[in-house]
């Protein structure tokens, strides 16, 4: 593999590098233009002076500067929705850009391309994208329809926790600068559902598949053929992830190559001339790309496929690497924010790995006496897996152990399913009866595919979760891969690669070996409206109290926030998972935690209410020992003592007043976790005569005015109070009444809606409280219990 064969690769890489660099060095547009112009002038001078090599290097840097420029945030037009000041009651008209996502019968999420804004009699045009959640039952809507609604809009915030994916940044990448909510009775449909042909074809295909196949198999086939995964059951989705074969559920080069080669083969067999065949295959590929949509992996595969077909048309040999570089350049020029999309990175990394590593790997496996077909299959699987490994780790903390082996079995099966599936859809357009037989074959193959994936996922440690690697480790890993084809021939390459590999290993195992800093650390995570607190006791024990909101068909905080937070801390085992009470803003995220982590035991107050069946089922499935706690119990966690203050197990009480109330003591530091305890519960705890005085109080019920009574706060005398609450929640927590009482009691208030995650740390002498979203830390001396300084 030499660079002469891929002249576009350095330019493409430089452009991508410029885009990525833009997030660290952000020069003003004038400075960036000046830099690019200067580099260009230097390159021209070098060329004129006969220094061709220098000119070439300067050209690459110029392109990098262009990437930097392209990535700079664009100027928003004056009529962009985020620049308009909208009064209440303003109506926004727009077109749905994707199919509405139904979280629940009365909750639907819409993404709207804004066209106009109406306020009173004033009607003006506007643009930009907004994402609106509609509450209430609504007539079905579809992509492409025009609607008008009255939303309340605000900039997205996301969940602000250490090392957790930034939802707001992802929305910004998708061009959504405002999100909001609206009531269903204020949504007006302006146009009938008259979608363009690709949408109609896709809907017809999904409906046809659903008519002929049972539910799970139909959902899987829709994923394989069309990348439509929304109906896929969670268990099957997770099995594909665990087995390391999730990529076949996204439309990629795999589908495009199978489609193009099927068309090519069948037309050649019919005796159609070669050039005409290439043209027809090109048209089919473009049509297919329109139907399945414009994800980066589809666009990449389409551009590369068309280039290969163009090669056939012009009777030239195509260079895969060059085609890949061109596809990358085209996509990034079109949409520079793609460079940070996991889908873009996975697609290009996998293709690069296959193109770059496969020839050498096939040759060396063949030299060891492997049969040619097996060597080629293993080499492709290995090349792709090695190249995507850092991307999977950075975004998903997933390290697939079984992936290379699983792909060997899964890819041929998936190939057969995809080919026959396309054929079945084609036949179904003509004759449903004949297609029925093909769908029977497909069902058999799909069940076989699921069986293989299920078996691979059931292997112990098929996939492990590890902390996201540092930039240094990622760079070193790609250095190793770049040197791989040369290690047999060049001794120095062998040495450097070995050195880098040692560096990668050292950087990767460091989080596991890092000694504990000996501090008690309690992290109140920003989970929106809900509770989740992670407690680390020096010496090892780790507790998670409550799991935030979550569950099927909604944003699962357990899966998307808590699990990555824990994985990035090299936590795979929790000694205790506690649940204050079974409301879904405390329990909803727990099923994901129960699935992903090894857990010592589960603490609960013992009462369950309708609505939390899913959590109970997950608990039963996980077979974790359960401990029902009652007032007066004392448990040691390492050096820390946990005392149970509520419930007493006798007094009938509302679910909130039945909350598990825990008090944790470690070296004179005391912490009171009150769940959603309301005033009757507080009165009961006061009557019980338990010691309440605590340094840090987790304020009851998100700061509701029916909690945190004066008497209770007076008994606790907390110096710091943490309110776990979501911004703009519909309950209007925290209430001014509760805040006033906390202030009167002399507590310093920290709120997850404003401060992001609140991290309380102590070594027994001092205590630090960090507001994660603000990046500030208050330091308290525990003798005086007042701040000694506040460092930024």
């Amino acid at each position: 593999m030499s660079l002469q064969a891929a002249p576009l690769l350095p330019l493409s890489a430089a452009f991508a590098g410029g885009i990525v660099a833009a997030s660290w060095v952000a020069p003003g547009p004038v400075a960036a233009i000046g830099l690019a112009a200067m580099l260009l002038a230097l390159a021209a001078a070098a060329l004129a002076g006969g220094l061709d090599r220098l000119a070439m290097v300067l050209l690459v840097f110029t392109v990098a500067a262009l990437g930097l420029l392209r990535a700079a945030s664009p100027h928003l037009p004056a009529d962009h929705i985020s620049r308009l000041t909208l009064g209440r009651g303003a109506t926004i008209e727009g077109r749905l850009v994707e199919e509405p996502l139904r979280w629940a019968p009365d909750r639907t999420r819409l993404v709207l391309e804004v066209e106009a804004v109406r306020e009173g009699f004033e009607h003006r045009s506007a643009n930009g994208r907004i994402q609106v959640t509609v509450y209430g039952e609504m007539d079905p809507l579809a992509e492409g329809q025009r609607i008008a609604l009255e939303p309340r809009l605000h900039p997205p915030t996301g969940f602000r926790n250490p090392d957790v994916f930034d939802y707001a940044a992802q929305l910004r990448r998708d061009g959504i600068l405002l999100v909001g909510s609206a009531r269903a009775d204020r949504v007006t449909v302006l146009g009938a559902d008259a979608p363009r042909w690709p949408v109609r074809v896709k809907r017809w295909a999904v409906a046809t598949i659903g008519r002929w196949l049972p539910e799970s198999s139909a959902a899987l086939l829709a994923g394989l053929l069309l990348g439509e995964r929304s109906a896929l059951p969670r268990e099957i989705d997770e099995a594909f992830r665990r087995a390391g074969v999730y990529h076949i559920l996204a439309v990629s080069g795999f589908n495009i190559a199978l489609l193009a080669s099927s068309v090519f083969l069948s037309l050649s067999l019919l005796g159609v001339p070669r050039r005409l065949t290439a043209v027809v295959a090109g048209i089919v590929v473009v049509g297919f790309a329109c139907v399945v949509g414009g994800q980066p992996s589809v666009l990449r595969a389409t551009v590369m496929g068309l280039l290969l077909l163009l090669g056939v048309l012009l009777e030239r040999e195509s260079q895969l690497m060059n085609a890949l570089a061109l596809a990358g350049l085209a996509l990034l020029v079109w949409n520079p924010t793609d460079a940070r999309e996991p889908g873009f990175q996975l697609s290009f990394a996998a293709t690069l790995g296959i193109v770059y590593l496969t020839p050498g790997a096939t040759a060396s496996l063949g030299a060891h006496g492997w049969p040619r077909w097996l060597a080629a299959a293993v080499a492709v699987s290995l090349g792709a897996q090695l190249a995507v490994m850092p991307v999977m780790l950075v975004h998903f903390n997933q390290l697939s152990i079984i992936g290379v082996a699983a792909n060997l079995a899964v890819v041929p099966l998936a190939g057969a399913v995809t080919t026959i599936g396309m054929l079945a859809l084609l036949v179904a357009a003509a004759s449903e009866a004949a297609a029925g037989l093909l769908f029977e074959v497909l069902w058999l193959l799909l069940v076989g595919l699921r069986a293989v994936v299920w078996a691979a996922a059931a292997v112990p440690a098929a996939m492990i979760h590890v902390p996201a690697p540092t930039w240094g480790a990622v760079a070193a890993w790609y250095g190793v891969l770049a040197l791989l084809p040369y290690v047999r021939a060049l001794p120095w390459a062998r040495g450097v690669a070995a050195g880098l590999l040692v560096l990668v290993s050292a950087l990767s195992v460091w989080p596991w070996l890092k000694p504990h800093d000996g501090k008690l650390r309690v992290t109140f995570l920003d989970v929106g409206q809900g509770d989740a607190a992670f407690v680390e006791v020096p010496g090892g024990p780790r507790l998670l109290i409550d799991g935030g909101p979550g569950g099927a068909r909604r944003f699962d905080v357990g899966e998307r926030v808590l699990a990555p937070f824990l994985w990035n801390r090299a936590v795979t085992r929790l000694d205790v998972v506690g649940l204050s009470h079974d409301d879904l803003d405390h329990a909803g995220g727990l099923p994901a935690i129960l699935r992903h982590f090894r857990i010592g035991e589960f603490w609960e107050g013992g009462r369950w209410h309708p609505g939390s069946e899913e959590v109970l089922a997950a608990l039963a499935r996980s077979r974790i020992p359960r401990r029902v706690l009652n007032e007066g119990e004392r448990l040691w966690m390492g050096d820390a003592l946990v005392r149970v203050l509520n419930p007493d197990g006798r007094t009938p009480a509302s679910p909130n007043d039945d909350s598990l109330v825990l008090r944790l003591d470690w070296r004179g530091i005391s912490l009171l976790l009150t769940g959603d305890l309301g005033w009757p519960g507080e009165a009961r705890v006061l009557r019980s005569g338990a010691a309440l005085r605590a340094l840090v109080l987790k304020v009851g019920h998100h700061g509701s005015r029916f909690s945190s009574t004066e008497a209770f706060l007076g008994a606790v005398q907390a110096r710091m109070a943490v309110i776990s609450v979501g911004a703009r929640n519909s309950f209007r927590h925290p209430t001014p009444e509760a805040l006033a009482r906390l202030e009167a009691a002399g507590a310093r208030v920290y709120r997850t809606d404003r401060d992001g995650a609140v991290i309380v740390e102590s070594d027994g002498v001092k205590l630090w409280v960090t507001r994660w979203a603000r990046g500030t830390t208050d330091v308290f001396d525990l003798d005086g219990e007042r701040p000694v300084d506040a460092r930024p």
Partner: protein
Amino acid sequence: MAGAAWHARRTMLYTRPQLKLLLALAAIFLVGLAVREWRAGFPAAADRLERFDREDVPPATPLIARPPAPPPQPRADHGVAAQPPGAPSADPPLVVRVAKSPPPAAPLDLNSASADELARLPGVGLGLAQRILDERTRRGRFESPEALRHVLGLGPKKLAAIRDLVTVVDAP
């Protein structure tokens, strides 16, 4: 090439690659026929196969009853000890089995229920029960349990919790 030689004979209709494709298609349709016969003959087995990797549907019975409180037991594993560290204990893991409460009796008819009966629903107190009765008086009768949405203090969450416990009996 053999294919060309065969093709040269007048009796040969297809080239070798064409034959391969046609045979493969015929085989696929044959397998399809066989699978269809089998699925029609053994629908239960086919359904089991289709659902082999799905998790069982969670039990529909909610647990409301509190289990008998276990006596506080010392434990030493999982880093959790009921005594200060250093005092080991070898009790087996304590698994608390939560008894399932019997399924609710017949659903409550919203149009004939009294305030007391309504207040026995989870999450419904006497105040809310009275507001439900007020709403019933205002409307005449509830057409469906979903109409409870209009009662102040009965949000979607609470409605979902009691949805299966209430009903509306058709007017006589």
